[in-house]
């Protein structure tokens, strides 16, 4: 199976998450201004990155800043080497930190790593708010506060086999795509996206600033859409106020 497209529509971190969540062997080829990189995946992680004569984690950090170009993702391709051993989520975090440092060299604002550290210390408070919220959503399966990198700041599940990390990663890719579509169509500022499926309602609502969103999943049979949207709006405001400045 293959997928190809433009980096303007799907960013490299999202492609990496997609490939890792798929847990299949795959090769992601990326072209940017004449440079050609290849990332290889196996069993839910990135195992090799190569660009010209260079390979390893530094290749990934170099290409994470590419916003223009094309990609080609093909599954079933075995990696010719193992040059990456860190987990994909830690690599993306480190990559994001480096990009921020590079962009804000003369800037006096906090680096993204410092922001994550500060936000991480708020996690117990977010957990409490989410737990309270999940009690108010009829038929709640799970809820999470998610960064636009797809990583949970906090989550709460009311059903045993719910996987909030997987939900957040998938939800983030979808929300980013919808946000891009709405923006390109000049259809206004997106507030939320609701997916109705055979088994569930999945609602994703941006917090102000659109760096984070609130994700809620409720059972289709017992959930109530109006209740979900109202509770989601109320608690999104509350979570936004609890965010560090």
């Amino acid at each position: 199976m293959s997928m190809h497209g433009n980096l303007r529509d799907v960013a490299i971190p999202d492609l990496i998450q997609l490939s890792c969540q798929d847990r299949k062997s795959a090769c992601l080829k990326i072209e940017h201004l004449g440079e050609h990189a290849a990332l290889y995946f196996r069993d839910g992680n990135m195992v090799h990155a190569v660009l010209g004569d260079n390979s390893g984690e530094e290749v990934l950090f170099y290409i994470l800043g590419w916003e223009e170009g094309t990609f080609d993702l093909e599954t079933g391709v075995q990696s010719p080497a193992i040059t990456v051993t860190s987990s994909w989520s830690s690599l993306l975090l480190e990559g994001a930190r480096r990009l921020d440092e590079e962009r804000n060299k003369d800037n006096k604002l906090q680096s993204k790593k410092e922001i994550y550290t500060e936000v991480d210390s708020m996690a117990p408070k977010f957990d409490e708010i989410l737990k309270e919220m999940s009690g108010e959503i009829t038929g709640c399966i799970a809820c999470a506060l998610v960064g636009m990198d797809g990583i949970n700041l906090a989550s709460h599940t009311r059903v045993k086999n719910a996987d909030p990390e997987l939900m957040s990663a998938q939800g983030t890719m979808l929300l980013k795509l919808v946000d891009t579509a709405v923006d390109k169509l000049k259809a206004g500022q997106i507030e939320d996206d609701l997916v109705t499926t055979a088994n569930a309602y999945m609602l994703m609502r941006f917090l102000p600033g659109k760096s984070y969103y609130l994700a809620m999943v409720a059972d289709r049979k017992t959930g109530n859409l109006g209740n979900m949207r109202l509770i989601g709006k109320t608690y999104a405001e509350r979570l936004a106020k609890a965010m560090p400045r």
Partner: protein
Amino acid sequence: MPKLDQLIQQFRSELGADFVSTDVVGMDGMSIAGGSIDPSFDSTEASARFAVVMKLAAKASDKIGMGAVDDNLVTTDKAYIIARFLGNGSYYWGVAVTRNATLGTVRMMMNEYADQIWDAIPR
């Protein structure tokens, strides 16, 4: 496709002043029927972009075990945009209405028309 065009026209009339745009779109992103009252709204681009959205929604839902996708509703400060799979999922039906619209009514109407629209698509 006179029957399909007729159904679309009927639907638009029932929606009234809240109607912005509607398209019946193949999963290749090509619209086969529909139209917009807003000349600045590019329904060709919208059809293509939301075909990708629907494909990703279906894939995401499958991965997290939520079952087949029925529809995707986007709320913006200007509009509601609803994309709903038709029949076997080889087409979707997109509708955009103003924020003044009663969302429950729009969804209910789409439920009523969906099967007829699917039946009217030439196969």
